[in-house]
């Protein structure tokens, strides 16, 4: 397994936004998760979900929707792990 950060972004208060990242080999098992980089204790800051598109026989595109659960702007990293 190996991990990485695909993108860094920010989200306005109580908004959600979708990012996409393309050209991923379809044979890879990839999981996506988000880590806030702006520290606020006491409550969750972001939630996310992932959708996937098979773009060709060999490549796929991941669509990551991130939701800011707070009343303040959140900065975060979009992280991935290639499991196999």
């Amino acid at each position, binding site marked *: 397994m190996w991990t990485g950060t695909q993108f860094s972004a920010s989200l306005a208060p109580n908004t959600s936004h979708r990012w996409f990242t393309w050209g991923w080999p379809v044979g890879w098992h*990839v*999981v996506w998760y988000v880590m806030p980089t702006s520290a606020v204790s006491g409550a969750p800051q972001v939630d996310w*979900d*992932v*959708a*996937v598109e098979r773009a060709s026989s060999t*490549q*796929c595109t991941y669509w990551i929707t991130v939701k800011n659960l707070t009343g303040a702007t959140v900065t975060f990293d979009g992280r991935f792990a290639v*499991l196999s």
Partner: protein
Amino acid sequence: MPRENVLVEEVTELTAVAAAETRYRAVVFASGSSARLDLEDSRATGWLAALEQMRAAGLTAYVEVDPGTGVIVEVLCPLPVVVDDLRERDDGVDVELVVSHARHRLSRDNPEFDELLAALRRARESREPVLVTETPDEHEIIDVRPDPKARAESAETGEVGVLGTPVTLAQANEMFTLVNNRTACSANPIAPGIPFTYPDDGCWGRAHEMCRLMIGAGVQPDKVWIYGNLHVVSFNKPDCNVYWGWHVAPTLTLTTGETYVVDPALFPNPVPRATWASVQGDPAASLVPTGADVFHRSSGGTLTFDPAYSQTNTVLATYRTQLQLRAASSSGPPPYSNCLALPPRTQWFGTIAGNTSHRWFTFGWPANWHVVWTIMPTLICPGTPTLSWSVAVERAGSTQATYWITVTNSSPHTVRFEGRYDVLST
């Protein structure tokens, strides 16, 4: 050979009929005839898209109509061809059509066998173009009639030398990605997508379009033609088996001198020419290289050219339509799970209807294992996200867990997918 309740004509208009009848769309044909498309038919969306594709491309449509209601009960896309050869067998007649590399057959079980055979014989003698309609998967001929459209072709006899400039393997891979990224959505194949997932027929159009794209990117390819009793196994055909009389694909000459073939219908990357030939089931097949400008080369060596890509566009439209019609059928869009082996760390193949959610469960997992679940569509459909998923877990016993995976299909198409797992630790 007119069959009852069949229209074989160009579609001129697809329109909504009276507001009170919003269940139906009117399909108007070139002669002024019309038929009704029942939007409650599960095939209607695909048929509508196919009819629109045929209308836009000026292709002739084959439509069967219920005589009592005027409602369309079948839509097919006839092939504009010349009959080249007929070979009688005990159970039917093998029919060689030009241009087509698929195997076509007239079954003796067809109640109109004698009439259809007579029409095919007349067409073979006259060499006049005909429209041949066949069943989608078995390629059994069900209708033959004169093609009123004249088509301009420039035919020559001889051989054309290869012209390709050498490239590195990395450049060959780039060219493969370039053309493979033009794959048409298997569930809704629209222009300018290339119907790589319709392996039955149309390779010469795909090859010419791939060459056009490579030349546009500054790389000069060639082509290789293979002639023989060809058979390939494909997960993009419902019965997994494709039979050809010939096949063609672009080639690139490497700086090492090797010839690599770019054929996304068969391989996920460029492959050496010998590898490409080896999967086509005929060790005695003959290979003929030509330049990229040859649009079609008959087994006898007659060459046809299409410098303006007009015939190419017609071929691509024809086989996008065939793919659309296959996707609308009970088979659904490719690939077909019955033709696929379960890959490692894949728990199941699933199928989910368009715009629906469905939950699967899998039990007996050791509760101390750390398991994550992901979903990967096998349906190729570029442009928008297709599937998302969520996971719930049940502690079924002191040692075992059951995972419940809910998959949501946000596309309007039926999608097949792999349900994948990874065990992070045990």
